[in-house]
């Protein structure tokens, strides 16, 4: 009876999701009107996510052939429930022609609430084949929307608890894992009518345990003037360096079009300053480029160049590029690892293209690890093709030079990896033969050392065993002098900006500190501005009294233990704690904390883990090392470059009495806000407070939260600050990396000594900056306690 009921009703909804032609309209307003009309009419359907692990919501084509130009596909989607394992791993892939975009559960803010999932695409002018018949069929232009769920045990278990669809009746009773129980049968009787495709009318969506809903999509034709790129000449400038920017526009349509072109420069939190405006007509298929200087005088920290092309009645295009000004690139470091240079960059054009790619990912530097023929004693290869001593990575002199030159051209920096305890491979073993008194122990395989030359002969792909030796005790100065001489020579040969040591043993080896100081003196005398970074366990190095030497002059520590712990499903609150401790130690000594960011976006990590971890890193002033931060929902790496002043400025001091100074609405919703809070004197009477509103539960476990449960977005968060008498408010801003790095001025009022402001919206993490002038520091500011260092 029940089965018959389901079958009889199936045909009514068979066509509920049948959308084979997508409406095309010109302009944003008509598109909005179409979408609103569909919404009002209740058009659409919901797909039962319990039916399968994949599904199709749309397989369609535009209602008419699309002329060359820019378009935006609007796909209204809604997902329910949220924060549930039934939907946590959902991915929706939207395709238009050859362009696609992924959406995941994090794109949906509220369960069942529709979002406008958009996909911008360009239709190129078709290549005309004179031999093609005039009635040749147009090239298909697919518009598809598909969804997938992870096919894993936990997800399956949860999904099996949903109702059974009529297409697969399963009346096994009592087996809760594979079929409905008596209770489930009851709910099955109350289930909505489900089509064979697993769809229900939109109004019935709420009765499905898990569903994704879609309203009819629409294609909006936008202005054909595309902003191809906007670029500052460099990602990082040194103070006094001239700046320049370039904006490239192209008319991708099939006829001439006009747009209001604007290029602007914004420094810090200041107002945008116009660099260029004009109304320009660009012929079909033509490109127009604007290039001009940007005034960086007196600038420090981050800024951006923005460009837009606006057309009346049509959605235009806009974009921006971020940059920073600093004399110490560690201040804005986002460092990638670059092993295995090979001969990929023997062509300088390839090097430039690669550096552009790094810059697009938000990196400001790269580290060539395992590059040197010997990590302590040989940084000047003797042959064009050479092999790194630690693991046989190949490189050429030409490629290395070209890569570094290309990096400098775009303001990126180059770091070479080194060790300080002894050398690697053949050069080190040969030095040990000549100078046995320099060395104590060694770790080697004689066969591997013997065969090293076979790599150059092309008989061996790579020596995987790292043969290395260790300095004797006490190590001779001559060994360090040789090391320093090699670094100097390598800097002159290739242009390295810094060295990152992978070893340092201050706890047990007192000789390291004077040796390090000697090397630094020698190198800096020949290469002023050369920088130093160290693999460090900051708490240990702090106890050993060595961290000051390591970080003097604004050095960077590379910390790797934290992210190694990601595999243990740490709570984000604990991760934040550790990051803040690292910051406390490192900033106390004027350094910078480069913590490895070990890819928390591969399974079992989720996009939410990625956002939380990225937010915690930046809120605690940690520079991501090796891997970029989250860049799909937001642009965290670019945000770091843009707003490093509020994240990485190691003069930002703790605000130990934050709760006395700041009254934060819904304070218990923001993770560690009082400990994240910082303050700084801006010089003269200028003062600043930086708050981090991190909307996350501290117990959220990275890599163990597939449901992506997250707290709701907070709106209109009130903040009040009690400032010293006589304070004059300069301004307040909210900064956010999602969806693009940006800031907005916050309307703020000051009455007496109290400043009140409201943050409109905090979804994951916002940075709030409040600047004021006062002759007095903040009231009752206590000195920071010494770092708590656990033994």
């Amino acid at each position: 009876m029940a089965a018959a009921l389901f079958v009889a009703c199936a045909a009514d909804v068979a066509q509920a999701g049948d959308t084979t032609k997508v409406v095309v309209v010109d302009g944003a307003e008509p598109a909005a009107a179409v979408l609103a009309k569909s919404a009002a009419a209740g058009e659409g359907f919901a797909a039962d996510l319990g039916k399968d692990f994949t599904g199709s919501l749309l397989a369609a084509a535009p209602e008419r052939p699309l002329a060359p130009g820019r378009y935006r596909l609007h796909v209204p989607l809604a997902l329910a429930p949220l924060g549930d394992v039934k939907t946590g791993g959902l991915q929706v892939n939207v395709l238009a022609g050859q362009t696609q975009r992924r959406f995941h559960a994090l794109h949906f803010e509220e369960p069942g609430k529709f979002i406008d999932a958009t996909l911008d695409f360009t239709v190129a002018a078709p290549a005309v084949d004179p031999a093609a018949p005039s009635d040749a069929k147009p090239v298909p232009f697919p518009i598809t929307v598909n969804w997938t769920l992870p096919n894993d045990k936990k997800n399956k278990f949860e999904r099996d608890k949903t109702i059974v669809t009529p297409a697969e009746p399963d009346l096994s009773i009592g087996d809760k894992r594979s079929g409905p129980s008596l209770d489930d049968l009851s709910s099955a009787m109350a289930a909505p009518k489900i089509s064979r495709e697993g769809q229900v009318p939109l109004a019935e969506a709420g009765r499905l345990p898990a569903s994704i809903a879609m309203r009819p999509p629409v294609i909006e034709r936008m202005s054909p003037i595309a902003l191809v790129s906007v670029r500052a000449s460099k990602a990082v400038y040194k103070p006094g360096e001239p700046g320049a920017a370039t904006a490239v526009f192209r008319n991708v349509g099939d006829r001439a079009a006009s747009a209001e072109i604007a290029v602007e420069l914004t420094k810090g939190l200041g107002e945008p300053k116009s660099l260029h405006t004009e109304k320009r007509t660009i012929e079909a298929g033509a490109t127009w480029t604007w290039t001009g200087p940007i005034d960086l005088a007196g600038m420090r920290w981050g800024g951006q160049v923005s460009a837009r092309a606006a057309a009346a009645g049509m959605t235009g295009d806009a974009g921006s590029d971020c940059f920073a000004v600093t004399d110490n690139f560690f201040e804005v470091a986002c460092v990638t690892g670059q092993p295995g240079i090979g001969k990929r960059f023997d062509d300088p054009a390839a090097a430039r293209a690669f550096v552009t790619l790094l810059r697009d990912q938000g990196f400001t530097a790269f580290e060539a690890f395992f590059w040197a023929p010997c990590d302590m004693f040989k940084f000047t290869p003797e042959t064009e093709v050479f092999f790194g001593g630690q693991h046989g990575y190949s490189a050429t002199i030409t490629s290395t030079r070209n890569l570094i030159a290309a990096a400098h051209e775009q303001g990126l920096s180059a770091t070479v990896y080194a060790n300080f305890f002894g050398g690697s491979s053949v050069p080190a073993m040969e030095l040990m033969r000549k100078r046995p008194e320099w060395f104590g122990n060694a770790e080697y395989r004689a066969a591997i050392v013997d065969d090293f030359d076979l790599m150059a002969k092309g008989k061996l792909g790579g020596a995987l065993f790292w043969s290395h030796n260790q300095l004797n005790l006490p190590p001779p100065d001559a060994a360090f002098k040789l090391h320093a001489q090699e670094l100097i020579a390598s800097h002159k040969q290739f242009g390295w900006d810094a060295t990152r040591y992978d070893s340092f043993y201050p706890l047990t080896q007192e000789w390291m500190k004077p040796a390090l100081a000697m090397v630094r003196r020698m190198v800096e005398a020949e290469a002023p501005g050369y920088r130093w970074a160290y693999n460090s366990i900051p708490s240990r190095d702090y106890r050993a009294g060595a961290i000051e030497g390591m970080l003097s002059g604004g050095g960077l520590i590379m910390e790797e233990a934290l992210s190694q712990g990601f595999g243990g499903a740490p709570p984000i609150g604990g991760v934040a704690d550790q990051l803040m401790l690292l910051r406390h130690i490192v900033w106390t000594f004027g350094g910078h904390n480069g913590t490895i960011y070990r890819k928390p976006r591969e399974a079992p990590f989720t996009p939410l883990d990625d956002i939380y971890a990225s937010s915690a890193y930046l809120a605690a002033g940690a520079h991501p090392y090796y891997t970029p931060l989250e860049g799909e929902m937001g642009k965290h790496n670019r945000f770091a470059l843009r707003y490093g002043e509020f994240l990485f400025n190691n003069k930002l001091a703790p605000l130990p009495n934050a709760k006395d100074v700041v009254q934060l609405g819904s304070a218990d919703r923001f993770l560690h806000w009082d400990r994240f809070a910082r303050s700084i004197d801006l010089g003269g009477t200028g003062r600043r407070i930086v708050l981090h509103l991190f909307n996350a539960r501290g117990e959220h476990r990275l890599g163990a939260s597939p449901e992506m449960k997250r707290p709701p977005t907070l709106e209109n968060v009130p903040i009040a600050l009690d400032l010293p008498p006589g304070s004059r408010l300069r301004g307040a801003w909210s900064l956010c990396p999602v969806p693009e790095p940006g800031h907005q001025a916050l309307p703020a009022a000051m009455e007496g000594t109290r400043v009140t402001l409201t943050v409109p919206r905090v979804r994951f993490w916002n940075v709030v900056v409040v600047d004021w002038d006062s002759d007095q520091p903040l009231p009752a500011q206590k000195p920071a306690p010494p770092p708590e260092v656990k033994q």
Partner: protein
Amino acid sequence: MTTFARIHAAWLAALLVLLLAQALHAQADASVRRAHIVTGLWHRFYRLDEALARAKFSITSQSWASATNGFGFAGPWEGDYGSGLEHLPALDVCATNDVIVLCNVNGRALPQELLAGLKRHVERGGGLLMLGGRFAFGPQYRGTPALAELAPVEFGEKLDLRAEPAGLALRPTDDPWAKPLAGLTWDKSPALFWRHEVKPKPGAHVVLEAGGQPALVLGTFGKGRVALFAGTVLGEPGAGTLPFWEWSDWPAALGATMDWLAEPLSAGRAEAAAAWGRELRQQVDQIGGLKIDALTARLLAALPLLDDPSTAALALRALADCDGDLSDTAWEALLTRLAPHCGEGSAAAAEALVKSGRPRKTSLGLAALGGARGAGAVATLRSFYISGMVKAGAAAVSVDPGAAGGVDGAALVATPEDAHVIRLGALVGLGMTRDAAARPVLRTALEELAGKSPGHPDGLDAVEQSFQQAWLSTLLTGDASAAPRVVDILTENIYAISRARSGGTDLEWPNLHRPTPQMLRWQQLQWEQLASAPAGVRAAIAERLAAIDEVRVAPLALAALGGKALSPEAAAALKRSPVAAVRALAQVPP
């Protein structure tokens, strides 16, 4: 006649043949000398390959020292190195070589079995050479009883290396044992810059000194000899000084030492072989035959004695009279060491092995059949190469693969692995015939295999092994035109071994060391056969070797030409080699 009596009679006949062969044994190439080198860092500075060439060594093998004591610890001068050895052959190197060399090796790297073997080796007449270096001697040797006992010196309790920045010139002493070193160009003042401070034991002979300190010390232990070089290749020579390792006569000095070390076993090999044969026969008589495992253990322990055709015949006879098949290890070892030295006296035993119905015995028998060079050998070998099947008893029964079989006259099914073993034995045998009539079979085999051979992968599969063996056998039949290809194949094998033990071509840590032992054993099989190549192909081999600018080709050259009488053409070719050790082969007086 009872079975026992028949066996007894056969043994008596074999023993008589052995004694007669010894009496009539003609002077030809030097008997094959073998050395195993435990290789530490900087071994090439010692120029051991050149020394081995001068001392007429032929077959060499290596194991490699390693030290693992963790990352980044700046330790003291005398730390423990967590040392070990890699690629020590499965066979007892001490039983199968004339001289063992420890080249800059930490005593703690040597496993207990090797240390015990070293003592037995020297006691029975073997030679041991200890070369100094950063990781040698000192408390690690003092604290290793076997080494402390064997060495002709006493080692210090602390690190014994002493720096001599100005260099100390090496000089021969007045000791009578220094006589072989007298005629060298000592006036060039070859010097050392770091030495071990050692104290010669009573009865030891200091034959080289440096600055009044012992540099080369000789001693005896049991029937064997030990030499210890207290110098090292450490240091940076100052201007105007000649480090001994760059001295033109250093290989001659080291070679003379190696020659002295090898002498007891070389000189006494015939007598030792005869004594061994008597002992084996006695054992067989007393027990009424040995079990296969016990017999192969005896054979493996006496492999150097099997170089002689008569001893080889005895061994084959004993194997044929045993029930059961050889293990893989025994088969590989005996194919390597026994087959190349089988002669006419092995014919009957070879046939018996071929008809045993046991794959590995059949394989060995086929190889020996080739060496026996009887009439019909080529045809028999061809038949087994094609079929890859065992045949049991007098009736050659060919059974389809997949059919079940049993013992007692029925044929045993040959699995693909067994088929390969048999075919390999047949290929070896074809080479051993030294008969041009074998070449058409080999040519056909090469044509069939060439298309399937993958070249030089990181490991060697059956096809590649067969392909390589077919080429080598072609050379061994006297076809000199095969020499370039054979030399190139064996050279590529050297590279393949390097690839296997280094981990291959990607950046992970794959377990690619697995093929290394198999490839090393294969290399030994090839080199042992090459060492028995007919004189007529030596010039062609020399020509090809001389064209290769690769120091790693030296042990291959030794295998092919070490200790051999060389034609003027061969010698002239070798002198053109860019590799010093290869050139050194041409400088050895006949």
